[in-house]
């Protein structure tokens, strides 16, 4: 092929140069003639467009596909970045949510404990948090973060707003060990709360069923039923009277045949024990307010209004009595004065 090119007879340079110069001059003139509107080439323009259009269509389509691909890749990258950021945000929010839930739970527990403290006016309570639990499975002892410096001493009762937890086994300066009522070594003097029962018994931990203590020493013919509430009796001096222990879940006969025992469903959930209160002092509970008197239908009166009327009537009566007394004194005084004047006149 190269030989073929080389074999061609080259045109004389002068002719080529002349052709080029003519072409330049022609194009130069064409520019000005076209700009002035004297030459128009619509046919050639349309023909060129027709020839070019398939190529342009192809490249335009290719370009749009590439653009779509590019935008897709960009979008994927953006979504990946956004996804990563959202994952990080989710992790952060989960951590915050966990913390908030923890605070909310603690708040709820402390509110309940505070409510119990306000209601239980007969007790002086010291709030404490559970910071440890003995690892030995057959005993039930917890460690709380209050000790002798906080006023806690041995044998003080420990409660929650739900009921009795146990008593302080050993108090150190800042912490205390609390023996739960689930512990087999624990014994709590209790009685059935039902007014027509009031049967006394001892609640002690059951080694065979660590989550359900037993109320023992119940006479076989005692009036005790399932679902009876069990409260502390106050006997023994460790636990104040009236603290809820739980309710009787089952009743079984003792092997000897004279006694029976009740399995207690404790009111306190010992598996979720986090905050407790130590009763550092207790006193006699104030009398409960009298219940409202039942009134006959249709003749109901407002006791407060009646009391107010009675008070006013008493005041009026007292005022009237005082008035009468004053009048009587005045009359007596006048009579004495008159009598004195009469005696003076007779003497003269």
């Amino acid at each position, binding site marked *: 092929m190269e030989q073929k*090119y080389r074999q061609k007879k080259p045109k004389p340079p002068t002719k080529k140069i002349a052709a080029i110069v003519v072409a330049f001059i022609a194009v130069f003139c064409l520019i000005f003639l*076209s700009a002035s509107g004297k030459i128009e080439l619509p046919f050639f323009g349309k023909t060129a467009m027709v020839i*070019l259009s398939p190529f342009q269509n192809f490249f335009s389509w290719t370009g749009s596909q590439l653009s779509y691909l590019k935008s897709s890749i960009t979008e994927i990258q953006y979504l990946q970045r956004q996804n990563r950021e959202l994952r990080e945000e989710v992790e952060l929010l989960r951590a915050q949510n966990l913390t908030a839930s923890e605070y909310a739970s603690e708040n709820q527990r402390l509110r309940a404990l505070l409510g119990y403290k306000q209601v239980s006016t007969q007790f002086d309570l010291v709030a404490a948090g559970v910071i440890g639990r003995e690892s030995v499975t057959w005993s039930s002892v917890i460690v709380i973060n209050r000790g002798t410096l906080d006023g806690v001493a041995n044998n003080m009762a420990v409660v929650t707003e739900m009921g009795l937890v146990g008593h302080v086994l050993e108090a150190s300066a800042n912490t205390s060990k609390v023996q739960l009522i689930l512990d087999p070594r624990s014994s709590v003097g209790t009685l059935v709360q039902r007014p027509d029962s009031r049967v006394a018994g001892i609640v002690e931990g059951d080694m065979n069923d660590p989550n359900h203590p037993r109320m023992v020493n119940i006479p076989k013919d005692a009036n005790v039923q399932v679902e009876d509430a069990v409260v502390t009796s106050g006997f023994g001096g460790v636990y104040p009277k009236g603290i809820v222990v739980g309710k009787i879940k089952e009743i079984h006969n003792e092997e000897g045949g004279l006694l029976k025992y009740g399995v207690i469903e404790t009111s306190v959930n010992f598996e979720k024990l986090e905050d407790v209160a130590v009763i550092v002092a207790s006193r006699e509970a104030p009398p409960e307010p009298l219940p409202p008197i039942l009134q006959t239908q249709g003749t109901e009166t407002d006791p407060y209004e009646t009391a107010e009327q009675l008070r006013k009537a008493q005041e009026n009566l007292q005022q009237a009595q005082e008035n009468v007394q004053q009048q009587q004194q005045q009359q007596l005084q006048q009579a004495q004065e008159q009598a004195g004047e009469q005696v003076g006149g007779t003497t003269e």
Partner: protein
Amino acid sequence: MRILVILIVLVLTMYAAQTSLLTYLDYNGVSANLLLLLTVSAAFLRGPYFGVTLGFFAGILQDLTSGDFFGCATFAYMTVGVIFGKFSERVVKDQFLIPIVSAPVAAAIYFFITVGFIHLLGYPIDIEKAANTNLVPLLFYQIIFALPVHKIVYDFDKSVVSG
């Protein structure tokens, strides 16, 4: 004849790619001028007469289809074809660096010829502003696309020579 058809297809393809595909990569409406690069490379490889001929047809194609000042592109491409074709007699054809370096120079020639004609036709033009908005991006694009275009033209030229 086959060579002519291939050449026409190459010119059409380059121009179609320039006007359709490279618009996706434009910067403020300016993208690479592949026909100018084609003219420069062809002129380097084939001499001034081939360069001016290719420049003429490439310019005519652009002038007919672009709707710009008719003849300006033709004149500019022909000028570029002549100038860089003259260098073909003095440089080694296998040298790739010179066409790449020539690409921005050719772009500058094309720009100033066009601006000159616009000025001669009586249209007011701020050369500095036009250079900032049109010439500077064009220079970068021409440098980037010079090598691939020259490689295509070089391979085409070699295939023609080898038959």
